[in-house]
């Protein structure tokens, strides 16, 4: 018997693993008795574990809120970037639209096919077209509001 020989961490780890198995297999009432006989305050144990468990739910919800806030901030940022590139008023957007077409003849020919007569294109169509051009990266420079 080697009673006086100190245990290594590895040996202690093995023993803890076996004790964990015995805790897992035991009835809760047996563990309750074991803790009571060991002098543990079971009300304190219950309060500690319950508080930790509820804190886990709160923690998870805070993480979800954090992610939602990040997504919101990204959306706001995307909208802000768009606003800085697409003009604010219908008149300015129409001027921006035709300026882009003038600078990009290939885009003009593609849009002519789509809208037939670009002089009769509506403000809503211009806004949609600018959104598409922005998505394609054709609106490099920030648009003027007026």
């Amino acid at each position, binding site marked *: 018997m080697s009673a006086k020989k*100190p245990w290594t*961490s590895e*040996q202690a780890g093995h023993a803890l693993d076996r*004790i964990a198995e015995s805790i897992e297999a035991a009835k809760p009432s047996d563990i309750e008795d074991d803790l009571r006989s060991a002098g*543990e305050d079971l009300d304190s144990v219950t309060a500690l574990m319950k508080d*930790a468990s509820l804190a886990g739910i709160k923690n998870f919800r805070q993480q979800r809120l954090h992610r939602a806030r990040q997504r919101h901030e990204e959306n706001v940022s995307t909208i802000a970037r768009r606003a800085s590139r697409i003009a604010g008023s219908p008149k300015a957007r129409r001027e921006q639209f035709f300026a882009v077409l003038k600078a990009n003849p290939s885009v003009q020919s593609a849009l002519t096919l789509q809208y037939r007569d670009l002089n009769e294109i509506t403000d809503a169509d211009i806004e949609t077209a600018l959104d598409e051009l922005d998505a394609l990266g054709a609106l490099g420079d920030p648009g003027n509001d007026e």
Partner: protein
Amino acid sequence: MNTKEPLSMSEKVATGDEIAQEIEKLTKAEWAKLYSFARNRARAMALRGSAFTERDLVQAAIVALLKERRHWNPKKVDFVGVLIGAMRSIASNYRTTTKDGCFAIPESQLAAPAGDEEPNSLAKVYPDSRLNPEQAAIISNTLSEVYELFEDDPESLVIMDGWRDGMSGSEIIDVLEIDRKAYETITRRIRRKVFAHWPKGSHHVR
């Protein structure tokens, strides 16, 4: 549901509200079992330098249940079993992570993240060549002290010898030619002595 595989009718992914309801239903005896298991696994992690307490571990288990959207069949496994499984998994993953020498600080002991840093990890693991020898020594000493208490109980001593040598429960049962019930009875004697030797009041290793 946002799960990779379809769930059977009896299997579900628990929501925060459902878990909160299960928490309220737990009895004092069930909390005692969860506490004992959490404390045991926190000690095992501390041998490898972890700063996790039993409180940190049960909290991390709840977060893992929700974050990983684990499937759970209440007809097969009760809530205590689910939580024990989650804690076992965290402790086992920690052991794997720290094979090359690291230490972990649970998220609950870290300062709140600043700016865009998302608080999504259960623990921060840092590489470390030293495995907190003082903490590991306290735990190892507790077990060797318990061993010495069984001087007049050769059955317990021989089982602890098997544990110390890394034998499984089944291997010990085979070698000693005893049945599972006898093994569990002896194991319980050891378990009670170990419980009595862990420090009371403090929920840390020391």
